[in-house]
């Protein structure tokens, strides 16, 4: 009693109910019920494979372990003309003569007719359940041991629904095979769609081979639709048992395909009102349950299952551009692909948010960078302005010395001119000496030009990119500028240089300015010194990559506590200093990757030293 075992395990109240039920159907559960499912066409042929699957699963669900299920298929239905039932009947007789069947279920009309024919020989007392027979083909026998689950296919309704969905349709191709049954259905359908004559043209595939069908279906005129009725055998007599038949049509077709069997729904059928295999199966299984539990088939009226409410495949609607608003009322849309949004909503929100945050951050960073660039540019501009101002101040501080320096060549020129006048007034004039005089005048004029040139170069305001600057040249330039001032105060200046020229990468004027600021500091420090006044510029190569320029003076030196801070802005030890010279010098030196510092010399005076990176020349 395997059936009771789980029942006793359930709660008391339910167990009582269960016991009452078992008592009522005590006989039915005594032994497994032997049921034969007899099909008309091959089990694999569409849509029968789907019926088999559904029926079996529904039966097993309803009668777990209680049904001994046999399946057989008549196969003969597709043959044209009369066929001999004998051998197949013998086969079944051999199977079931010793094992009486409790029920035989026939699927589709040919099998039902076979059973009706062989009733007396094979299934004398076996109840007969006719399943899936179109009511037009069903012939009710006088047999009281028989009942039916019939189907009713309203072809006109199907065609009308196609026109509803695709209102512009002018042509419908109807796929039908060449078997007698299929030819029967052609006439049935033709008769039924008579009212649509004039509205739409029909093409019938009964006389086409499978290949011709595919060819035709791929070249349908615009505004066509396909109605896939049934295809068991083509015009060449080739049975179309392959379950993939429908999908080949679907792939070849250039028009939407409709049908009445929902077995192909989901694999290319657009949809519409269709027979529901599961609904038919449920009805069959319900009838089976009643018969198995002892009800007489005669007491069970035949059930008719009509077309189910229209269903449509969303993917096909998309494929053929069918508006959902064109679908009949109360249609169901299946296989709707979840939209990207509903499928990835949180991912999308998350990514969008992340991208947004990142964009904001990047924007903020870019903005910051822009601001910093601008600030840097402004600060650089200020530095250049300040440096320029410092140069102007330096020059104006020395302008008297420099202007006076100009008087040297001017004085010489005037003297020479005077001498020439005197010489010319004599006769004969001393031509050789006059030549000398003119040469000297030219020389002095050039010298005057140079003095002005040094200054003009130094006062340049344009910003040129740094180049390679010779240190000794820069120092010479500075000497040219400070010589008058040094001379005025009786200060000697010396340049202690290396034999080979050294180059640093800088703006020449900037380097000059640094050296000039240091030189002027040195001169200032020595103005009031009575002992020796000597300023030395000493260049020393520290290593392969750097050079030190030292500016040494014999002046008053730097107060010890100010050695570091003299490089800060507005720190000065002079009475009239701006406190910017050394600050600018340091800024410039650091801008070119160098450093600068000050110290006091052992025997008095200060030493300013700066180290700059050397330009490397390819060997």
């Amino acid at each position, binding site marked *: 009693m395997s059936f009771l075992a789980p029942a006793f395990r359930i709660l008391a109240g339910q167990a009582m109910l269960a016991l009452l039920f078992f008592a009522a159907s005590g006989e039915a559960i005594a032994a497994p019920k032997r049921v034969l499912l007899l099909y008309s066409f091959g089990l694999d042929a569409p849509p029968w494979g789907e019926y088999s699957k559904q029926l079996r699963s529904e039966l097993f669900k309803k009668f777990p372990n209680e049904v001994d299920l046999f399946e057989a298929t008549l196969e003969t239905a597709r043959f044209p003309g009369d066929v001999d039932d004998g051998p197949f009947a013998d086969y079944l007789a051999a199977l079931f003569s010793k094992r009486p069947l409790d029920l035989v279920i026939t699927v589709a009309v040919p099998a039902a007719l076979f059973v009706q024919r062989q009733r007396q020989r094979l299934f004398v007392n076996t109840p007969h359940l006719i399943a899936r027979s179109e009511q037009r083909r069903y012939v009710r026998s006088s047999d009281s041991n028989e009942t039916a689950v019939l189907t009713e296919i309203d072809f006109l309704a199907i065609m009308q629904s196609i026109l509803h969905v695709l209102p512009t349709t002018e042509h419908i191709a109807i796929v039908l095979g060449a078997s007698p049954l299929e030819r029967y259905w052609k006439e049935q359908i033709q008769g039924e769609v008579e009212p649509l004559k004039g509205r739409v043209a029909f093409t019938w595939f009964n006389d086409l081979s499978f290949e011709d069908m595919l060819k035709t279906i791929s070249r349908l005129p615009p505004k066509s639709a396909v109605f896939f009725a049934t295809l068991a055998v083509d015009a060449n007599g080739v049975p179309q048992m392959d379950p993939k038949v429908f999908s080949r049509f679907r792939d070849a077709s250039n028009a939407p395909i409709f049908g009445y069997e929902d077995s192909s729904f989901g694999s290319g059928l657009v949809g519409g009102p269709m027979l529901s295999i599961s609904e038919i199966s449920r009805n069959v299984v319900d009838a089976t349950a009643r018969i198995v539990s002892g009800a007489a088939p005669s007491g069970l009226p035949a059930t008719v299952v009509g077309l189910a409410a229209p269903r449509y495949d969303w993917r096909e609607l998309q494929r053929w551009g069918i508006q959902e608003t064109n679908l009949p009322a109360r249609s169901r849309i299946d296989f709707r692909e979840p939209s990207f949004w509903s499928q990835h909503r949180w991912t999308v929100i998350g990514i969008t948010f992340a991208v947004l945050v990142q964009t904001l951050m990047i924007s903020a960073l870019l903005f910051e960078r822009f601001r910093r660039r601008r600030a840097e540019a402004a600060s650089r501009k200020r530095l250049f302005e300040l440096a320029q101002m410092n140069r102007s101040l330096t020059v104006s501080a020395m302008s*008297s*010395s420099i202007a*006076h*320096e*100009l*008087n*040297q*060549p*001017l*004085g*010489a*020129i*005037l*003297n*020479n001119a*005077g*001498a020439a*006048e*005197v*010489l010319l007034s004599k006769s004969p004039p001393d031509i050789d*000496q006059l030549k000398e*005089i003119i040469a*000297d005048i030219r*020389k*002095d004029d050039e*010298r005057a030009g140079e003095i002005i040139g040094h200054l003009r170069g130094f006062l340049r305001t344009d910003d040129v990119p740094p180049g390679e600057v010779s240190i000794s040249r820069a120092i010479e330039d500075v000497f040219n500028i400070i010589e*008058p001032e040094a*001379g*005025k105060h*009786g200060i*000697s200046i010396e340049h202690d240089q290396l034999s080979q020229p050294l180059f640093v990468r800088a703006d020449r004027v900037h380097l000059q300015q640094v050296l000039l600021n240091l030189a002027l500091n040195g001169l200032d420090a020595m103005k009031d010194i009575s002992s020796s006044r000597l300023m030395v510029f000493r260049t020393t190569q520290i290593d392969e990559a750097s050079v030190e320029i030292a500016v040494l003076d014999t002046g008053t030196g730097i107060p010890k506590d100010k050695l570091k801070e003299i490089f800060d802005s507005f720190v000065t030890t002079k009475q009239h200093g701006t406190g910017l010279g050394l600050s600018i010098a340091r800024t410039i030196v650091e801008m070119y990757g160098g450093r600068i510092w000050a110290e006091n010399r052992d025997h008095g005076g200060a030493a300013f030293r700066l180290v700059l990176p050397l330009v490397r020349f390819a060997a």
Partner: protein
Amino acid sequence: MTSPTPIIHVVDDDASFRTSMSRLLVASGYQTAIYASARAFLEKLPVHDAGCILLDLHMPDVNGFELQKHLAESCNVLPIVFVTAHGDIKAGVQAIKAGAEDFLPKPVAKDALFQCVERALVRNAERRQQQDRLRSMRALVASFTPREAEVFALVVRGKLNKQIAHELGTTVRTIKAHRQAGMDKLGVKSFAEAVSIAERLGMLSE
């Protein structure tokens, strides 16, 4: 006493300038000597005392003022004319106070230069003349006997004969005789003239 050709000494560290200056002066009939530095001038300190110095102010080593000071300490009769590119009022005043003949800024106009040089040469002639006079007076004073010199020194300081006689331990008459002999040797008629000579020879400050 002969009147020697004056020499214009040009002291300037600027070669171009000193050459041109010399050239101008020579062309105009002067005799010149050029020096690249104050030290070079001092080394060749000219015995020839007719002329003047055209002196640059700013020179390395020894500058114009220092040379001027140095010359003032010796018996210099060469007037100094500063010719400088760095002339300012302060330097000019300092130079004139220290006895410079003139202070010319470079560049110098030819006429101004010649005027200045001429004035300096006149001054030089005066100084030389004066120096000659002093030299001859000093020779006269040197011809005094020791006693005459003693008496003369006291007389010009305004001492009375009586006081001198008492101081030197002799008689008024002897003093009068020495006094007359000295006046005769100096060739002066009046006592005032004798005091003037003594003053010029610097005997009063001794």
